[in-house]
């Protein structure tokens, strides 16, 4: 019996190690082969971290975008990047390539530890495995410190289930200092969880520390909230659920309903916690039919994280049905991952010709501030220290109508819409990445295609100068 147990332990450790190595490798390899960070958000975080490294603090108003902008992003991610950069004596941008994928990889053994605490080793191993191969979680390992929130959510849930509410609250505070959104999401999950158990005192014990931390952070920055009205308004009105949200809805609903149908036995605290997590995630996802205010990509990753534990429990039985669903889940994940692993999601945000465009813009006079998409702007601002009209500073948008128009510019269908945006904000230069399909829409306007860079068989990256004559932008002709 003891020999059998030892054999099982050895096998368990070997399989867990294999899961960890495979899960880490698939996360770290794209970061290692790319010479730059993979997501445009990272370029913004790098700028803030570099500022901390140089000056030792983050000003309330960002100095880099024209006119300044309130800075409400919590500082711990930027501080961590800056400190790691100092400790290892490597540039912040290099640290940023690996920081989040390393932490995302660490989630795999932590998930095993967590699930084993409340369930058995088989369920824990399956949870670690599902987390390691989830295409959603792999592809979201690069851009946002929400990854850190997901990692810390597991010890937080551990404390919560062991009624250590103060510790849970302290972890919520730490997570908040990395990223507000994930902290708010976790707070809502905790709230639903504790409400379902009618533990009102526990709520007070959990939330008094985060409430103080939140107040200490935001009270000196109250002026920053003035822009949130502008920010929320147009987002509610101007967009509806996109085709992608409609396409994946049945799959997401099935992924929630299948484990619910398979799970047997009484609902304990562990299961109740994941019910709250998955329930809230799917509600937020479905809210895309009313408003896209909750970031669809991020929300999906959070949903998938909860489903990992849900699914692990559902397919850890000894019957053939469990094995069938485990195999199907693995096959579907690997197939989806194989399809998307060769896409732009796993490469630096711009192609070589687009980086040539950025170098060219950096040689132009300082008063040339182009309108460009997020990827181009974030790279331009971080790599060349130049300004760009659509910067990546999401946390506070002083003029959301303008910001939304800039974003919409790259998706307009006719030249008149484009002309209206260019005229309204006196834009004098536009930089197009190869993938900006509205590139052809600008041609009938009175513009100069001043610069073009290309690779074999890829669309051109271009720079257009806008001709404003007597205060107006007109058409060159109606010719395409």
């Amino acid at each position, binding site marked *: 019996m003891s020999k059998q147990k030892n054999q099982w332990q050895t096998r368990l450790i070997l399989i867990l190690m294999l899961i960890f190595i495979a899960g880490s490798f698939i996360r770290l390899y794209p970061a290692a082969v790319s010479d730059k960070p993979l997501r445009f958000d990272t370029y913004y975080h790098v700028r803030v971290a570099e500022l901390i490294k140089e000056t030792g603090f983050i000003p309330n108003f960002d100095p880099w975008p024209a006119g300044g902008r309130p800075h409400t992003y919590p500082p711990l991610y930027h501080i961590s990047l800056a400190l790691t950069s100092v400790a290892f004596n490597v540039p912040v941008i290099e640290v940023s390539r690996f920081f989040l994928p390393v932490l995302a990889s660490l989630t795999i053994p932590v998930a095993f530890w967590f699930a084993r605490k409340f369930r058995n080793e088989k369920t824990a191993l399956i949870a670690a495995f599902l987390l390691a191969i989830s295409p959603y979680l792999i592809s979201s390992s690069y851009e946002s410190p929400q990854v850190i929130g997901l990692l810390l959510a597991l010890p937080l849930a551990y404390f919560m289930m062991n009624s250590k509410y103060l510790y849970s609250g302290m972890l919520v505070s730490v997570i908040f200092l990395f990223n507000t959104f994930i902290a708010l999401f976790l707070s809502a999950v905790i709230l639903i969880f504790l409400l379902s158990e009618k533990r009102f005192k526990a709520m007070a014990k959990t939330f008094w520390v985060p409430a103080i931390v939140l107040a200490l952070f935001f009270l000196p920055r109250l002026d920053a909230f003035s822009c949130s009205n502008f920010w929320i308004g147009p987002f509610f009105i101007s967009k509806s659920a996109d085709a992608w949200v409609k396409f994946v809805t049945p799959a997401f609903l099935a992924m929630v309903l299948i484990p619910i149908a398979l799970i047997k036995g009484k609902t304990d605290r562990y299961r109740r916690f994941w019910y709250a997590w998955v329930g809230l995630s799917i509600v937020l996802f479905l809210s895309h039919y009313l408003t896209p205010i909750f970031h669809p990509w991020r929300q999906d990753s959070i949903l998938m994280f909860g489903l990992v534990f849900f699914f692990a429990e559902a397919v850890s039985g000894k019957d053939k049905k469990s094995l069938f669903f485990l195999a199907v889940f693995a096959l579907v994940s690997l197939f989806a991952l194989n399809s998307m692993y060769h896409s732009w999601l796993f490469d630096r945000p711009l192609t070589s010709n687009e980086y040539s465009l950025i170098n060219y813009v950096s040689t132009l006079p300082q008063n040339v501030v182009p309108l460009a998409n997020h990827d181009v702007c974030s790279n331009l601002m971080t790599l060349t220290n130049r300004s760009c009209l659509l910067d990546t500073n999401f946390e506070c948008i002083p003029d959301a109508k303008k910001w939304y128009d800039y974003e919409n510019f790259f998706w307009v269908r006719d030249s008149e819409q484009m002309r209206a945006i260019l005229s309204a904000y006196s834009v004098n230069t536009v930089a197009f990445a190869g993938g900006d399909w509205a590139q052809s829409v600008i041609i009938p306007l009175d513009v100069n295609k001043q610069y073009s*860079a290309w690779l074999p068989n890829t669309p051109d990256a271009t720079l257009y*100068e806008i001709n404003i004559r007597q205060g107006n932008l007109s058409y060159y002709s109606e010719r395409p």
Partner: protein
Amino acid sequence: MEKLELWELTIVLSCLVLLLIALTLSTLPKGPVTEAWLSDYSTSLGAGQNVSFKLHLNGGSEYEVITFLDDEKQATVRSNNHYTLSFTLPNPGQGMHRITTRINDLNSGDSHYLFFTVDVL
């Protein structure tokens, strides 16, 4: 050691496939970049003034450069990499005109173009 159970085998095989997928990662195209840009052009001209501009090419191929005044072909020049070409075209007459340079990459067969819009008073 005992044989792996089917669920363990599923995990082990999937992890091996996962490693295989990671190793097949190909990056976005990073071949030779060709850059072309215009300089020394004016977007408004007086009557009788000629149109002049420069085209700069920076790439690793052979190119054929054709200039157009609106839709009318003006000149054809063959060029290789790292080159600056100067052009002077006759005054096109009053109104808005578009001066286009089409760059044919003779190695890849691709065509690219630049242009500027000039208002002749």
